[in-house]
């Protein structure tokens, strides 16, 4: 029997049992749909987060507490402002390349509005180092830090919430129980689905924040290298300075690439885990196909016997049933793919979750669905092909 003829027979058999074919297809459809959708979400998240890190600038170095093992529990920071100053002293070139920050959470109140958000205590050079801009008013300077002035810069989102329709400059917000004067509003960064929303950050002079939090520590030190070429050189200097001041496992120096690498790896694993979970549903769909094909073979035993009597070879019968299984699964795969892409676009549009359909997830989903038909169709198809015509004809 020609492939074309076998294809026609397969389609006819499937159309002849529409409801069952549709239900069987549904299993594969849902599997493929979830693979495409979940991988799209995982991939979207990965791109957004690495994009956010890249947005900080490519020649940024981070000094973080702990030995840099992201798998371990977050380390307690042993850094102080003196470490920031020591690095600043040792690095060659212009000043203002080193910044420190301390992070805490305190409720914010103004005009009866109350929100809880991240409070960043930063050195005067911070905005320059991480390339953030003030859109209205002005940033605080070194003298504000030196005197622990009670001034604050609000993220654009925070300003909107606390002072809707009002110019916040010169107004007062209460953080914890201390009153701060708003000196500036940050430029809007834009929404982020993952990680902290940077429009909801609030900046204080680092010394004021330390007093507010009742601590002397610094959580992270940021260094902007002179250029991309001097990143390695600066890193060596920073490591030497820190080694003199702290134990080797109390700090680690990371470049932007290091962080993107680590975060990217984590997100890649996350994506794969999502894909694997979705893959399980695809597998279940495949088992469903296998099951239904076995039922179909047993129901059509007489047909198989007849076809054999009329001259069908084992190969013809096997091919017919294999083709049937593959038509079922690839149909499910195609519809599932279309549905997955559609849903991913809906998600990206209406939910704060980025979703990006990648070509490899499309190829994977289609390949896997045809493969599922092949693998799960083989058992029933072989069983059909091997039926003895005499027994099969007598079957009722």
């Amino acid at each position: 029997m020609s492939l074309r003829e076998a294809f026609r027979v397969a389609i006819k058999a499937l159309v002849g049992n529409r409801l069952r074919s549709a239900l069987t297809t549904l299993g594969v459809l849902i599997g493929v749909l979830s693979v495409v959708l979940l991988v799209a979400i995982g991939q979207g998240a990965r791109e957004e987060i690495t994009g956010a890190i890249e947005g900080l600038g490519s020649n940024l170095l981070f000094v973080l507490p702990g030995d840099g093992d992201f798998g371990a529990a977050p380390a307690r920071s042993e850094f102080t402002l003196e470490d920031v100053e020591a690095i600043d002293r040792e690095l060659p070139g212009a000043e203002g390349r080193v910044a420190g920050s301390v992070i805490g959470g305190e409720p914010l109140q103004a005009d009866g509005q109350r929100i809880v958000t991240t409070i960043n205590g930063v050195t005067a050079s911070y905005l320059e180092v991480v390339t953030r801009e003030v859109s209205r008013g002005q940033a605080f300077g070194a003298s504000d830090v030196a005197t622990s002035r009670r001034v604050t810069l609000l993220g654009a989102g925070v300003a909107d919430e606390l002072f809707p329709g009002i110019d916040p400059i010169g107004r007062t917000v209460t953080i914890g129980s201390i009153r701060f004067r708003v000196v500036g509003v940050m430029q809007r960064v834009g929404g982020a689905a993952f990680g902290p929303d940077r429009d909801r950050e609030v900046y204080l002079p680092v010394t004021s924040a330390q007093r507010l939090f009742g601590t002397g520590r610094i959580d992270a030190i940021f260094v902007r290298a002179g250029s991309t070429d001097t990143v390695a050189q600066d890193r060596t200097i920073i490591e030497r300075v820190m080694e003199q001041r702290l134990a080797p496992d109390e700090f680690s120096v990371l470049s932007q690439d290091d962080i993107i690498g680590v975060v990217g790896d984590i997100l890649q694993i996350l994506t794969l885990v999502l894909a694997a979970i979705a893959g399980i549903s695809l597998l279940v769909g495949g088992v469903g196909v296998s099951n239904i094909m076995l039922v179909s073979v047993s129901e059509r035993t007489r047909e198989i016997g007849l076809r054999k009597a009329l001259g069908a070879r084992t190969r013809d019968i096997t091919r017919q049933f294999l083709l049937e299984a593959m038509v079922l699964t690839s149909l499910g795969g195609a519809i599932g793919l279309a549905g997955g892409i559609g849903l991913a676009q809906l998600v990206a549009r209406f939910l704060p979750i980025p979703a990006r359909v990648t070509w490899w997830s499309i190829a994977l989903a289609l390949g896997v669905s045809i493969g599922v038909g092949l693998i799960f169709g083989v058992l029933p198809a072989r069983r059909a092909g091997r039926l003895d015509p005499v027994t099969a004809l007598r079957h009722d």
Partner: protein
Amino acid sequence: MSSSSTPTLLQAVEVTRTYTLGRDVQVPALRGVSFRVDHGDSVAIIGSSGSGKSTLLNLLGALDRPTTGQVFYDGRDVQDRSDAELAQLRNRRIGFVFQSFHLLPRLTAVDNVVLPLVYRPGSTRDRRARAIDALTSVGLGDRLDHRPTELSGGQQQRVAMARALVTEPALILADEPTGNLDTRTGDEVMGLLEALHRERGTALVVITHEREIAARADRRIELRDGVIVGDDAGPGIAADGSANGHVAIGDEAGSP
């Protein structure tokens, strides 16, 4: 076909077939059967249930292989042929007509008749044309697109006959072709089979337990308990139904 030049179409030589049931239970269904069918022969194989006639049908139809002995088709033993070669033999040389018709219920009459043709090369259009010819020749030219459930028993069996003759086989193997039909319809079906045999020279082997059906064949082979107990083969039999062999078979009818 070159094989058509020799008179012998098929030959069974000391054929036995033993079924193994369970572990050690051997059931002999045929115990040494020999006979020959020439091109253009009309043979009835008669026997009660359990006589081994279904087993013989399977062997003659190349659906099964004997336990010992040989079944030659066109001079070549089926034992020496692969499963695929047997499939081809069934497709090219044999047309089956079954007691229960064995039509595929989802297919129309034409598509049922096309069925054996899909296992050989050819175009879809040509297959359909041949199927329509075959259906017309059995008087169903106006029932082409009917499904089996929309046809009477006699019509269904005629579709099955069209399916058997559409491949222009050397042999039509009919297994109780009238078994599911009333007398009058059965008569029509037998008439069609005989016409086919007469007009096209197709060999006809009818397996039956009905004496009246068997009596219509040129020759009768009677089976009992897996052996041939009567074979009225011989020159002149076809012309003279009252020959000795025939009488011998007639005697069997008295004892159930």
